[in-house]
């Protein structure tokens, strides 16, 4: 068996190899397709959406799905389909930017903690432990409440709440890679610490970070939806999926489609992200290489 693995030549480079392996998992491909569609909708919302998200038409309030309003209208007669399409923009933005914030801050903290070890490590990781001990949704609520409502603050709140996860993961990978000989080899030719961390260590621990990131986007969208639901997120009339859910809540008995469709949009996105995340994890896991 060992014979077979060492003998196998891998001619593809990193990215090509990963794409090739993702292609073998039907779930991951389905996830990628769904995500691509949602991205497309988000980017070209202005062209695709039948009407503007804020366009009110009180004559058509509370209309069920019909040929004119495919997914019905809300209490102000706004087209739910258009709002979901525009909402994709906000939700994806919140998801990716907050994860971006968490990854950058958490990644640097984790890398520094893992590389230097000792007291630096202790200091950073205990702070992370404190953050971790508070449920992330509560933490996000507290941060959002203190910063005030708004899209930008929402992203910061969700991002900060997710920092410890990334710090932990990066620290773990850095610890395992720091012990490898090529790091020592880099030091032997006179490389600086910063160069070693950014050129040699971090690129080699991207796999778990990317996977966590993909799954993290899903969580971030959910947390953001939750915050919007309780009124700490985006402000009307900006169509955020969570806010739409919250808006439709009062009418759920009589007009269930007002909550149903944004709910489905959230579910589909999360599902797709999880599929892609799982597929990536398998594709990037060196133990599964064959």
């Amino acid at each position, binding site marked *: 068996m060992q*014979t*077979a693995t060492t*003998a*196998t030549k*891998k001619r593809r480079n990193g990215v090509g190899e990963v794409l090739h392996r993702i292609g073998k998992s039907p779930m991951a491909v389905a996830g990628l397709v769904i995500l691509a569609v949602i991205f497309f909708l988000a980017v070209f919302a202005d062209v695709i959406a039948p009407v503007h998200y804020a366009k009110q038409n009180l004559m058509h309030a509370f209309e069920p799905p019909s040929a004119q309003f495919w997914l019905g209208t809300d209490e102000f007669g706004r087209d739910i389909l258009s709002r979901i399409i525009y909402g994709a923009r906000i939700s994806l933005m919140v998801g990716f930017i907050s994860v971006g914030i968490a990854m950058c801050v958490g990644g640097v903290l984790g890398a520094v903690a893992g590389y230097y070890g000792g007291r630096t490590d202790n200091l950073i990781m205990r702070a992370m432990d404190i953050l971790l001990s508070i449920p992330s949704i509560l933490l996000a609520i507290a941060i959002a409440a203190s910063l005030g409502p708004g899209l930008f603050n929402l992203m910061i709140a969700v991002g900060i709440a997710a920092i410890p996860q990334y710090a932990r993961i990066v620290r773990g990978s850095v610890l395992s890679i720091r012990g490898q000989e090529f790091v020592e080899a880099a030091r032997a030719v006179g490389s600086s610490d910063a160069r070693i961390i950014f050129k040699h260590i971090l690129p080699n621990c991207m796999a778990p970070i990317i996977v966590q990131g993909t799954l993290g986007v899903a969580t971030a969208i959910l947390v953001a939806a939750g915050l919007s639901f309780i009124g700490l997120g985006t402000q009307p009339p900006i169509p955020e999926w969570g806010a739409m859910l919250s808006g439709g809540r009062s009418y759920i008995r009589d007009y269930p489609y007002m909550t149903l469709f944004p709910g489905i949009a959230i579910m589909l996105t999360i599902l797709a992200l999880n599929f892609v995340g799982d597929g990536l994890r398998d594709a990037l896991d060196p133990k599964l290489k*064959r």
Partner: protein
Amino acid sequence: MANDRLLLDIRNLSIHYEVEDGTVRAVEGLNLRLGYGETLGFVGETGAGKTTTALGIMRLVPSPPGRVVKGEILFEGEDLLKKSEAEMRSVRGGKIAMIFQDPMTSLNPVITVDRQIAEMVALHQDVNEKEALERAVEMLALVGIRPERAKDYPHQFSGGMKQRVVIAIALACDPALLIADEPTTALDVTIQAQVLELMKELKRKLNTSMIMITHDLGIVAETCDKVAIMYAGRVVEYAEKRRLFLNPVHPYTQGLFNSLPELDEEQEELKTIPGLMPDPTDLPPGCPFHPRCGYAGPQCATESPAMVEVEPGHLVACPVRARKGDKP
């Protein structure tokens, strides 16, 4: 030797791995014989197919991607490849035991060593727990571990001691054949000397047949009766140890000997075999060694070399060298 009854007779065995990039022909048309009480040294470089052959005998080739394509493995006259999985389970550990390279990973870290041996005994012999544990202590004594250490966990032993425990487990059911896959590679020289000494002594005592897989010709010289040299999935030379060491005929065997730095001679430059092992998914046609061979003629690139007997019991898969009459 053909008249002797054979313990193991492998005929024309091929084992392939199906991988993304094609078919790895790990073992290709391999023939091998082992008599009762003999020790066979199985020598080759990484990727030569030594371990795959051993796993093939145990029917443990991971499948997929591995597959026994053709051949017979006659063990005590019965073809192991035709046996059911249930029958194989009683063969493994019972009649054929295997020792793996790394003693650190072949023991369960949360079970005491006597229980690990007893488990093996209970699996293959009709004994109660107490008898099995007694047998375990006997086995430990046999490999030179004192009874008071029987209740220790593997991590309390050093590498050499762990390998002794592994040997005790392998021999617990009195197997007819012991396959040792690089049993001392992970050990230091002085500890290796201890373990080899122990294995030689046990072999004398128990008369177990053994296949010793190794890349170290020194270990072969020390422990084996016969030697098979493997290259790219085939046996290229097979002989009684003395004959092979004093008169290596196959160009690869000669190259292997020349690559070793000598302890008792001064050498300016080591003679090396040019080039690298061929890619096992893309073996050259004819003799797999011909692109690196100084003796190669045109027919070597087309004809797959058959084993030729150059002197009694000395088989070489190289018609060119055999024809030259390189007899002593």
